[in-house]
């Protein structure tokens, strides 16, 4: 760095603007220590698992993963995986599953976002709330409720359909089989809608309505405006959401496990889960790590093309002036159709799954609606389930995991955002990458990699809830830092400088200035991570032991065991908890999210 002093001497002193870099002895400041520690911790949390994953994939893991020489290098894991025809069918299913779910989710989300933001659809506010509400239902629960509704043997809808069309003609199975790829796509797609819809609505709302007005005064009708102005302008937002949701689809085990396993539809995430937790035999960490690397590569592909896809539009920022309420498109004769489709969608995606869960939870055994079934309504299962030790310890674990992961990831997120926004250090880019990477790492891969680490390290973490906390805390750093980076960027640097000029040390700057100013952002992020982590099934399942059951993994294990009523009771309870947390979040973020 001090090399720049040499040309300074030769160059004519006409441009004093180039600051002369002088290397002087710098005192180790609180800021520097904080930055350094943050980077080190993140390096350990993010890169450690990645290294383990790569080691395991290229080693002979029959004797466990080896972390010091001599390494038992081998290419056998890859050659086995490539030689197996099953691999290609898994890859193909993964591609179809994720592409289908994304297309469905984005088409539905854009349609509803447009209807709510730009048309005179009646009851827009309730529709908005009901479209976002399913966000409070964990995907594993919605998968279970769809299984209750549509499983080929005694799915509620199937029973009703067979009743209508006469059981004889159709037989004792079907007519709908939810344990198949098309239905998995549909269920996954619906579970993606709330967040996708939120993201698209937000950017549609943030869009300068003047740009549409300008097209209108240029003589464009509404179809042309949607096609040539609105959609292209939303492209960055849509692509951003697409990349985000793509990772969500490929990393999750919930829906593929509940709906795919019985129908023998395997995608990469369930493949990794299966080879890590085989029903019989020993786990094959070599194979699962190899699949993990596949999944990692798959998740990284869209990220690599992210900037290209955005096109040459570095800044989509334009001058914004007055904001008028966008012109409202009258639906006219299409109104009844739009209303009918909207409420049908809400009923199918939200009301029906909830009702079936409640129904199943008050029945001693699952069956169709009948007079006899109405007589059988009982709340004893609630009593039995909620007083069991398993439930109380899972509830306690869930709360601990939720709170601890939220605290861990938000503290890290705040620190890393602060480095990203404020630091002029040359290690700044590392903070950027480290904050971003956990988002690109599929949960099932993080789970696997962290499992491999703590199998080896002589820390008493493996099998406890803390291994789940570490995994979730790492994974949600990205989510948290999205909020905190924006939050810190909004706090003018001069506020910190003013504190320093008043004699404040780093800890005072944080304690008296940054933390109080960031409190709303922090709380918002804390609840968001809390909500996400108590809903998460992937990590608790990958790191499952009998001692670290949380609600989501308990629900899965009851379901796996075949206890439909118990599962339904737990699901209802869990939904109540997440809905309460979501309401808190909504109340906290005020009207920003809603209307």
């Amino acid at each position: 760095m001090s090399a720049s002093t040499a040309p300074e001497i030769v160059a004519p002193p006409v441009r004093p603007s180039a600051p002369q870099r002088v290397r002087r002895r710098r005192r180790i400041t609180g800021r520097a220590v904080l930055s350094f520690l943050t980077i080190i911790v993140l390096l350990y949390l993010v890169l450690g698992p990645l290294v383990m994953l790569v080691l395991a994939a290229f080693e002979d893991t029959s004797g466990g993963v080896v972390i010091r020489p001599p390494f038992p290098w081998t290419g056998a894991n890859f050659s086995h995986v490539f030689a197996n025809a099953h691999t290609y069918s898994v890859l193909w299913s993964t591609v179809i599953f994720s592409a289908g779910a994304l297309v469905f989710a984005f088409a539905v989300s854009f349609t509803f976002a447009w209807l709510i933001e730009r048309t005179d659809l009646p009851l827009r506010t309730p529709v908005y709330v009901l479209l976002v509400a399913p966000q409070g239902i964990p995907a594993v629960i919605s998968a279970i409720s769809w299984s209750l509704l549509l499983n080929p043997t005694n799915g509620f809808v199937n029973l009703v359909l067979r009743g209508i069309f006469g059981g004889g003609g159709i037989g004792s199975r079907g007519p709908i089989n939810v344990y198949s790829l098309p239905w998995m796509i549909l269920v996954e797609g619906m579970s993606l809608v709330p967040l996708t819809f939120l993201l698209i609505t937000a950017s549609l709302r943030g869009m300068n309505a003047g740009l549409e007005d300008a097209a209108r005064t240029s003589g464009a009708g509404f179809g042309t405006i949607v096609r040539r102005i609105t959609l292209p302008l939303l492209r960055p937002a849509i692509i951003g959401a697409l990349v985000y949701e793509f990772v969500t689809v490929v990393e999750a085990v919930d829906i593929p496990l509940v709906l795919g396993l019985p129908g023998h539809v395997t995608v990469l995430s369930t493949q990794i889960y299966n080879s890590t937790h085989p029903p019989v035999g020993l786990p094959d960490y070599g194979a699962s790590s190899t699949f993990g690397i596949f999944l990692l590569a798959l998740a990284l592909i869209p990220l690599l093309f992210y900037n290209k896809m955005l096109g040459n539009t570095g800044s989509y920022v334009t001058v914004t002036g007055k904001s008028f309420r966008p012109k409202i498109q009258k639906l006219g004769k299409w109104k009844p159709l739009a209303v009918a489709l909207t409420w049908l969608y809400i009923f199918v995606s939200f009301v029906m799954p909830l009702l079936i869960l409640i129904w199943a939870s008050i029945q001693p055994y699952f069956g169709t609606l009948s007079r006899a079934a109405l007589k059988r309504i009982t709340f004893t299962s609630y009593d039995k389930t909620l007083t069991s030790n398993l439930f109380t310890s899972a509830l306690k674990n869930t709360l601990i995991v939720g709170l601890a992961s939220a605290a861990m990831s938000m503290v890290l997120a705040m620190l890393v955002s602060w480095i990203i926004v404020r630091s002029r250090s040359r290690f700044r880019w590392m903070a950027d990458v480290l904050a971003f990477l956990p988002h690109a790492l599929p949960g099932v891969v993080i789970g696997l990699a962290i499992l491999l680490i703590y199998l080896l390290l002589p820390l008493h973490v493996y099998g406890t809830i803390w291994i789940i906390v570490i995994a979730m805390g790492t994974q949600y750093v990205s989510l948290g830092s999205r909020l905190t980076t924006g939050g810190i960027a909004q706090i003018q640097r001069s506020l910190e400088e003013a504190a320093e000029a008043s004699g404040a040390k780093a800890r005072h700057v944080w304690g008296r200035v940054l933390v109080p100013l960031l409190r709303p952002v922090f709380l918002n992020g804390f609840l968001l991570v809390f909500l996400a982590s108590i809903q998460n099934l992937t990590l608790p399942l990958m790191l499952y032991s009998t001692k670290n059951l949380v609600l989501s993994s308990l629900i899965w294990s009851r379901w796996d065991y075949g206890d439909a009523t118990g599962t339904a009771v737990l699901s209802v309870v869990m939904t109540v908890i997440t809905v309460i947390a979501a309401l808190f979040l909504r109340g906290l973020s005020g009207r920003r999210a809603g209307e």
Partner: protein
Amino acid sequence: MAAIRVDRLLHQYSDRGRAVTAVDNVSFEVEENQFYTLLGPSGCGKTTTLRCIAGLELPTAGTIELGGTVVVSDRGVVPTHRRDIGMVFQDYAVWPHMSVFDNVAFPLKVGKRLPSSVVKERVHEALALVNMEQYVDRRATQLSGGQQQRLSLARALVRQPKVLLLDEPLSNLDAKLREQMRKELRLIQRRIKVTTIFVTHDQVEALSMSNRIAVMKDGVIIQEGTPRDIYLTPNSEFVAAFIGATNFIRGTVAAAGPISGDYTLDTSVGQLVCRTDQPLVVGEPVTVAVRPEALTLSTDPVPGMNSIEAQVDLGLFVGESVDYHVQMGDLLIRVKGSPRTHFRRHEKVYVGIPPEDCTVIAADEVKGVPTSTVEEGEVDSVGQTV
């Protein structure tokens, strides 16, 4: 025949259950090829009026005619994209996902099918008009504010519309650029002869560019006339104060004469002779508005005009003039003095008030005089409700 006719335009909306009237029975006509300005402070309804003409807002009642075609009436509304208009927005509304060419070509491509050679030619013509030809291949986001402004104007003109609507097009530019664009905009408008409605809160823009000005307040046109009418004979304290700096002196009519049109007024600072066309009644309370540049300062009384003793409070030398604040009785009066003058603080002076420059306003006109300067970045609080 008027190119634009707005008749009893009413625009109401409800804000949290309360009915708000943004435009209250506004009527005006714009002649062919005229440059017509709606001038007023924020929230006066000028932008809403313009948006009603464009069809971006639906008026509650009233009629609008553009070039002989009724576009808004009780019988129906012509949608925006079928109106023969071009519009420039305050924030330019340049589409960031398109190139300069595509932005300008858009109105031609969504309208009647034109051969691509014609489109190309017309786009180049429009860009040449605003001196932007060399940027045709740029991305819209690579343009500066002033260039986006020009692009937005080219886009509005490319269809050769009957009516050009300008919604505060200059307010986002910096002062220098604004002055230059003011001139260019007016030259372009004259050259291509397009009937124009211009919305602004800047009285200098309004005075310098318009054929006619309508000064609006609270959804109502207060005064309409040529820039000279508006500036020299404001009909109310509001107009006088809004268009440039003004001193107000309140008093009552004491006597008429000796010359016809002259009146002697009793004011708190002494007797004042004013010359006015409008008949005044003795005993009537009135307000006199007089511009700072009409006043003179001298060390001795000047015969032949009102000359009132005062004391200099502050003199700000601004180069082209000296902005004096003088204490005249209980009034603080602003005087624009010649840069050659140099009166000191606390110095005794005589303020010369020429009778012909005293504009007499009936005192019961608009109350609540606003400041004569308007802050930038105003936001019309119209239609923000759900």
